[in-house]
């Protein structure tokens, strides 16, 4: 529960003028255990800790799921180690130390993922995750090596102002390396493949941390490298690449999410989507930065960071909700839920809050950050370069599509899981979860709402983070109408005030009710079965998640490449009545099939080829030595 302390530290750091620094030397060369708390780290510490607190509370109840089957002690220890390592990652002030804690973070999370390693798919997920993240780390190492080469030391201070500035080529190497390195952790398309396996495999409270927070450390890494180390001077294509990657990740993430019926993998895919949105904000910021439009740059970055904290909150909340469902029904398959809103009203309500937030519906927090992203994309018309100018609105269109698909997806998730009739015995026997878990969810839900309706508090806080990176503070400009409204570009430009919208909405609901009463008099209700064309409705007749997503799959079939298999065996008597029908449909995992499998296959092929090296023949072995000897001798001579 050290997370509580983290909250304090984070808040302190945001409030502080100058960064706190302290460092204790290690006994290994080049390695310094250095800690530095500047606004950026503080912001992320805050994010981590807020989620950490809520999740820890939730975990108190949730781990009951594992009693007997797993050692709670180990689980708890790893869990706290995980929190600690994440905090250290964002606090580290030394490249080497960063790498160490970064790897430890991956390692601990790997252990957490494979908590239930009896299941083959969990093992696969964990292994896949470990490999991917390790490869990512290799790229991060490359990026840092470049810095080290210039700076002659691993300390971030030296990275910031190296002895001689990096040549453009190397800067681009750093850019690409860290994009791949951190992108693997963040789960950008096409490096996201591990994410939908690993996040669901972990215990739900851990998934909440991984999906809500861990992937944010990657965002931290990118911001740190691009804006801090590289001093925020980039060619325009960097920002453009980031933006494109973000847009693609967002769109594909939500599209694959729509096809998922395992609630947790669905949420995992949404993490891909939201990372994409965050990157769109940051990318836009970078583009503006490279054209010297610092205020807009600050705006884009602000949007990105705002969405970062928002996503941390509502994704954490949603994963906790999924955890509660799992806890209550012991299944992750949405098709087996249904009608749970009556069984577990609290969970349902919190989940709804999360759903509204992630679907970016006003006045939720998701709406604010997505709106800011929209604005920063819209304001691209100030960019001199025509091509870029024309591209950014397309990004906006993709963002819009993403948003509404997310809406559809969570309409599905919530509707199928909580509404209508129970679809299985699991759902019928579900019970509301213990208070500890509810409290955890409630905490996050409240934070979500606050982040939504009180941007006037959040924006200045984040501005403290962006100002040192970009060099301009825009809080006072963005906040208009006495802080009620957000107004990116000063008077006359667009602005929103979620608080006012919230007030209006909450006012108008009773108004509508009053009106109804005034016109229609007292409400008289009659309860009756749903009309089912005369026959009584069974759960089997309900619309399934698959059915719900069917039209979308149809429309975007070029992307999904669905394969449908329908086998029917008919009655002997008549060809018109089927005895039983078996229908199954799959969507093709494009990236795995065309990107990853070939690599693995070729590796195996090479290994098979090389077996002949080690045939077991002694004479052959001797001849290896002989030949090597002769070659070397001749080389020396």
């Amino acid at each position: 529960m050290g997370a509580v302390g983290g909250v304090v530290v984070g808040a302190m750091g945001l409030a502080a003028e100058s960064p706190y620094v302290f460092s204790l030397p290690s006994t290994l060369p080049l390695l310094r255990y250095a800690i530095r708390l500047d606004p950026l780290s503080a912001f992320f510490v805050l994010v981590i800790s807020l989620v950490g607190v809520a999740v820890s509370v939730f975990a108190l109840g949730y781990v009951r799921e594992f009693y007997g089957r797993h050692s709670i002690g180990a689980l708890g220890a790893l869990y706290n180690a995980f929190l600690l390592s994440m905090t250290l990652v964002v606090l580290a002030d030394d490249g080497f130390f960063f790498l160490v804690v970064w790897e430890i973070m991956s390692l601990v999370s790997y252990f957490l993922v494979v908590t239930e390693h009896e299941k083959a798919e969990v093992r696969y997920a964990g292994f896949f995750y470990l490999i991917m993240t390790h490869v990512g780390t290799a790229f991060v190492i490359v990026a840092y090596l470049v810095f080290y080469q210039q700076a002659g030391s691993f300390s971030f201070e030296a990275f910031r102002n190296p002895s001689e500035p990096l040549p453009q080529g190397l800067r681009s190497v750093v850019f690409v390396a860290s994009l791949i390195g951190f992108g693997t952790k963040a789960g950008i398309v096409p490096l996201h493949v591990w994410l939908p396996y690993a996040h669901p495999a972990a215990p739900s409270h851990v998934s909440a941390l991984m999906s809500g927070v861990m992937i944010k450390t990657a965002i931290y890494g990118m911001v740190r490298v691009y804006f801090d180390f590289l001093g925020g001077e980039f060619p325009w294509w960097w920002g453009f690449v980031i933006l494109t990657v973000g847009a693609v990740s967002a769109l594909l993430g939500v599209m694959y999410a729509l096809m998922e019926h395992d609630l947790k993998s669905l949420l995992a895919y949404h993490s891909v989507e939201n990372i994409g949105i965050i990157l769109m904000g940051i990318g836009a910021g970078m583009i503006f930065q490279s054209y010297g439009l610092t205020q807009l740059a600050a705006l884009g970055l602000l949007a990105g960071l705002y969405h970062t904290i928002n996503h941390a909150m509502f994704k954490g909340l949603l994963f906790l909700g999924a955890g509660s469902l799992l806890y209550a029904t012991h299944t992750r398959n949405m098709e087996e839920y249904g009608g749970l809103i009556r069984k577990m009203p609290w969970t349902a309500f919190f989940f709804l809050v999360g759903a509204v937030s992630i679907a970016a519906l006003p006045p939720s927090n998701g709406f604010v950050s997505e709106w800011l992203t929209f604005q920063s994309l819209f304001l691209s018309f100030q960019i001199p370069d025509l091509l870029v100018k024309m591209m950014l609105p397309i990004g906006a269109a993709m963002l819009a599509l993403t948003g509404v698909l997310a809406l559809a997806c969570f309409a599905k998730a919530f509707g199928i899981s909580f509404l209508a009739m129970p679809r299985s015995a699991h759902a019928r026997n579900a019970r509301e979860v213990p208070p500890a878990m509810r409290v955890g969810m409630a905490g996050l839900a409240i934070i979500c709402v606050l982040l939504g309706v009180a941007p006037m508090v959040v924006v200045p806080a984040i501005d403290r983070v962006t100002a040192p990176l970009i060099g301009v503070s825009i809080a006072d400009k963005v906040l208009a109408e006495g802080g009620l409204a957000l107004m990116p570009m000063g008077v006359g430009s667009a602005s929103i005030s979620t608080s006012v919208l919230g007030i209006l909405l909450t006012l108008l609901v009773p108004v509508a009710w009053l009106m109804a009463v005034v016109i229609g008099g007292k409400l008289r209700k009659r309860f009756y079965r749903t009309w089912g064309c005369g026959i009584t409705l069974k759960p089997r007749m309900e619309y399934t998640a698959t059915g719900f997503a069917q039209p979308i799959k149809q429309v975007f079939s070029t992307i999904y490449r669905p394969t449908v298999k329908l086998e029917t065996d008919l009655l002997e008597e008549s060809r018109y009545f089927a005895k039983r029908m078996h229908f199954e449909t799959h969507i093709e995992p494009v990236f795995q099939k065309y990107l990853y499998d070939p690599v693995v296959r070729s590796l195996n092929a090479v290994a098979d080829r090389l077996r002949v090296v080690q045939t077991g023949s002694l004479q052959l072995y001797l001849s290896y030595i002989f030949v090597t000897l002769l070659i070397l001798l001749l080389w020396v001579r």
Partner: protein
Amino acid sequence: MIESALIILSQAVAALLVSPFIVGLIRKVKARLQCRRGAGVLQPYYDLLKLFRKDVVVSTNTSWIFTATPYILFASTLTASLLVPIFLSKVPINFAGDVIAVVYLLALGTFFLILAGLDAGSAFGGMGSSREAIVASLTEPAMILSIFAVGLTAGSTNLSTIVHKTALLQDIVTDPPPHLMAFVALFIVTLAETGRVPVDNPATHLELTMIHEAMVLEYSGRYLALVEWASALKLLLFLTLLSNIFAPWGIATEAEPSWMALGVLVWLAKVSGLAVVIGVIESMFAKLRLFRVTDLLGVAFILSLLAVVFFYILRV
């Protein structure tokens, strides 16, 4: 302060009052084109009244979502309509939300409507919900882009700013082509969003062809009234957007009572005109198959995209 409050109130009232009339008008036009006398244009008002008086039947499967949705839907739509300049170019609370906010407010309503559709547990509701979802997701990008295209001229997505500047033709940069394309795009979007032919047929009674109607199939009494009213309001809202963004002339640019009165009249004329057009279209075209709708909306998307591109091309 009082004044702005009054304006807000009057705007809300006006919108609420006019919306059923538009629906009635469209029905009338269609009837006439089908050589029927048709019900009077005031028929929707009677319907609403009647529905409010009737008592409601609620399915035993449903939860509070089902009962809450009508109110939320109504509230969100009304909120949206408060952000749109109707007869006064500068809405007092324009700072509260721009056009994107309007879109998302409507989306909020849609979201709950979809949930409500699923809530009853009948197959029709689910079908309607899923179709609504796909239609909405296809319209959204086109909508945002066309709005961008227009917003670019005024350099802002704040509706009041757009309308005001366009009305006064001051410090805006505009050319006919992008505007025209954006207009067509937004018009198609309107048809799709408000569930008109050729995307959806509000008059159908064959469940399998329904989209919007299927979703609200379980509603009755005042709930149905609220939902119907909300959708009428939504329709009006879009027509207002169309008319006031692209042809804001005649709208009151100052909060002078006389100007505002004129503004109201002009606005009525404009939206009625659009309503007639819609009526005509509805009787000219047949409803498209669901999976053909994509083509139509694709056209809308391309148009709006072209609008943006053209805007820049013509600038350089």
